[in-house]
């Protein structure tokens, strides 16, 4: 299946998470990440696992998709787990292999840290990747950051760049395929030989691709100008974002969750994770 970059990993749906305002989702994600890093003990982790599971259920996205999304972080999770297991010193010695000692606390710590990474990925993808299109995200970002435009940050220009990139990446990927085929038809070989030989074989692809990308950029600039584009000033949008009651409710709920986690850290000590 060819991935559609314009939609990223967006899963079509109509859940409350899909309907949330992209601005709200960005804010919520940031708070959620902070809360995940504030969590210190087993109780808080249990709470956050529950809320993240609730998010998954709310979104209606299948577990298989979510598991697939976790694959790329498998290595990092494993790596952190191993480091923690082997290099953590605690009180209860479990295995003594002379060079490395494994402690119960190390295992415990590793478990919670891996859990934190998993929760981090699952929760942010619930709010951002799976339920929001990159275009909506760009839009939300532009509007969220629009106050910065007053102090001279080119917010609109960045969002326009992002929009155009999203539009043209698939076109350029397609073009790369075409150029590769054209070069293959002339006897180019991209698959055999050493690293250097293969790297050199890329040159006849890169150069036409660049030439064409610049030509496209020129054409697009002309077409945009012709459609009265003069930058962000004086521009309106067709889809105006309206924050609804549930956007505020969600932000409040996640903030309350953060408060709960802080309180639990203070009043329920014990089984604390380091790092």
């Amino acid at each position: 299946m060819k991935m559609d970059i314009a939609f990223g990993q967006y899963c079509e749906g109509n859940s409350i998470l899909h309907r949330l305002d992209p601005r709200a989702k960005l804010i919520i994600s940031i708070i959620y990440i902070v809360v995940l890093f504030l969590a210190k003990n087993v109780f808080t982790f249990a709470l956050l696992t529950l809320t993240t599971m609730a998010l998954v259920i709310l979104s209606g996205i299948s577990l298989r998709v979510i598991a697939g999304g976790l694959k790329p972080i498998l290595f990092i999770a494993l790596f952190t787990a191993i480091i923690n297991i082997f290099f953590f010193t605690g009180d209860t010695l479990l295995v003594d292999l002379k060079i490395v000692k494994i402690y119960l606390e190390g295992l415990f710590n590793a478990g919670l840290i891996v859990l934190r990474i998993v929760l981090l990925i699952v929760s942010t993808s619930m709010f951002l990747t799976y339920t929001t299109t990159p275009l909506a995200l760009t839009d939300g970002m532009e509007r969220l950051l629009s106050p910065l435009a007053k102090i001279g940050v080119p917010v609109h220009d960045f969002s326009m760049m992002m929009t155009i990139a999203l539009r043209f990446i698939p076109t350029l990927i397609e073009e790369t395929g075409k150029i590769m085929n054209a070069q293959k038809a002339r006897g180019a070989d991209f698959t055999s030989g050493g690293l250097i030989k293969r790297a050199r074989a890329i040159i006849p692809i890169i150069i036409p691709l660049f030439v064409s990308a610049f030509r496209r950029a020129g054409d697009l600039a002309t077409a945009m100008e012709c459609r009265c584009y003069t930058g962000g000033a004086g521009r309106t949008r067709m889809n105006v974002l309206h924050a609804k009651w549930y956007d505020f409710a969600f932000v409040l709920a996640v903030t309350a969750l953060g408060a709960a986690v802080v309180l639990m850290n203070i009043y329920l000590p014990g089984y604390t994770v380091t790092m």
Partner: protein
Amino acid sequence: MENTIEVKNLCFTYEGYGDVPDVEALHDVSFTVEKGSFTAILGHNGSGKSTLASVLCMLSEPASGEVYINGKLMTGEDVTDEDVFDARRRVGMVFQNPDNQIVASVVEEDVAFGCENLGLPPAEIRRRVDDALECVGMRKYARHSPHKLSGGQKQRVAIAGVIAMKRDCIIFDESTAMLDPMGRREVMETIEYLNKVEGVTVILITHYMEEAARADRVIVMNGGRVLTTGTPGEVFSEPELLWDADLDVPQTTELLYRMKKAGLDVRLDIFDFEECAAEIARAVKKRQSEVK
């Protein structure tokens, strides 16, 4: 009659560099386009059609000559940015390659792009976008991503984007070149609808004589100059002139011209197949009665 566009003694040169010589793409071009009319521009490759269109859209500045848009002089020193913006919201263009004129990664967002630049209120943009997509028959693709559409569908999205801006004049630069006969007919119907019903002034740059034959006026370009102008009937009545400029004439004209050469008394300014057949039948009957 009011003129939407008036061009006087227009010259345009692409500056050379190094060994590359200057190219004089337009030389002493003059013509007028009446408000609400349908003008076709013909000419072989490199005859300066696209260059002319880009000058009319304020995309390039001519070396000399005058361009008036709605009676306002748009060339020379004292043309301000506001004037240019104002001219661009009156005259729009649909380019040959649809791929490089679509900005957004969702069809309706792209159609909305021009209206957003005009600073229209959101509800108004929504209405125009829906109407424009309806007009080009792409309503059900509103939420699709453009790179998955066929060339013809992309071209229609591009046309919708221009329609939505509701401009006085739209220039189509070989916008039907990538389409199949069906798609071309549909786009032609859209163009004629815009012209006849919505009253938009249309300038159609094309290589298809059948399309040019449906215009009110035809301008024939050759080597950066205007070779001839007139109604399709007038222009195509002199096929030799067009053949000399490496251009074709409509099939009906060619057939009638040959018959005339062979001594049959037929009119040349007929572009409809049925009418053409009727004309030939009439002439043949007349001839038969003369022989008898």
